[in-house]
C-alpha cells in the first residue's frame, strides 16, 4: 500500500513525462521536416507556387 503522497507524486510525474514527451515530439518533428525542406531546396527542387502569395495547396 502506497502512501497518499506517493499517488500524488506518481500522478504528477507521469503527467510531466507525458507533457515533456509531447513537447519534444513537436520540436524534433518540426526540426526534421525543416531540415528535409532545406535539403530538397538545396538540391534544386522548388515549389511551383514559390514566389506567389496565393493559390497553393498544403
Amino acid at each position, binding site marked *: 500500500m502506497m502512501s497518499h503522497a506517493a499517488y500524488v507524486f506518481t*500522478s504528477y510525474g*507521469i503527467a510531466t513525462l507525458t507533457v515533456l514527451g509531447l513537447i519534444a515530439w513537436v520540436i524534433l518533428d*518540426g526540426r526534421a521536416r525543416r531540415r*528535409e*525542406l532545406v535539403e530538397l531546396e538545396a538540391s534544386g*527542387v522548388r515549389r511551383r507556387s514559390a*514566389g506567389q*502569395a496565393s493559390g497553393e495547396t498544403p
Partner: protein
Amino acid sequence: MSENSLAIRKFSDLANPTRFLALADRLLPWLSGLTALSFVVGLWLSFATEGDYQQGETVRIMYVHVPAAWLSMMCYSVMALAALGTLVWRHPLADVSARAAAPIGACFTFLALVTGSLWGKPMWGTWWVWDARLTSVFVLFLMYLGLMALNRAIDDPARSSKVSAILVLVGFVNIPIIKFSVEWWNTLHQPASVMRLDGPTIDPEFLWPLIVMAIAFTLLFFTLHIAAMRNEILRRRVTALRRLAARAAGREARAQ
C-alpha cells in the same frame, strides 16, 4: 512575397498555409510563454492550497486529472469541427488540424485515465471499474489511436481526409455520452461538480488551482496543436517536393 500579402485580414485568409505558417511563427513564442507562466502559477497553487478533509493529499491529483479529462473531450470537439471543415467547406487546413490534434488528444486521454486510476486506488479502493464514465473515456482513447492508425495507413492526405473526417464525426457521439454518463447511469465516478447549470459545488480552495491548471492545460493544447499543424504542413510540402523531384528525374531519364 511581400509582408503585406501575408497579413491575415479575414478568417478565410487562414486557409492559406503560408499565411498560417507566418502566423504560427508569430504566435508560438507568446503562447509558449503564457503556457509556462500559467503552469508555474497553477502548480504553485496546486501544492500551496490545503488538502481535503476527507481525501487528504490525494485531492491534488484532481488538478491534473480534471483538466486532462476536459482537454481530452475538447480536443475531440476541435477534431469534429475540423472534420466538418473538411467535409462541408473543404478548408485546406481542416484535415491538417484534425490530423495534428489526434496524438495530442490521445496523450491527454491517457493522462486522464492514468491519473484517474492513481486517484481511484486510494479513494475507491480499486484501480479500475468498467462503469459508464471510465469505459466511455477508454473508448475515446481507442478512437484516438484508431484515427492515428488510419491516418498513417493511407499515405495520401487527399484520400485519407474524407474517410477520417467521417470517422471523427461518427465518433463524436461518444462525447455527450462521456459528459452525461455520470447522470444517465449509476457510476462509481462522481457526477460533475464544476460544469453544472446551478454553478460549481466545489470549495473555492480547490476551485482556484483547478481553474488555473485548466487554463494552463488549454494553453498547452493550443500551443502544441498550432506547432503540430505547422509540422504537418511542412511534412506535406516535403512529400510534394519529393514527388516533384521524382517526376523531374523521370523526365530526365526518358530524355537521355
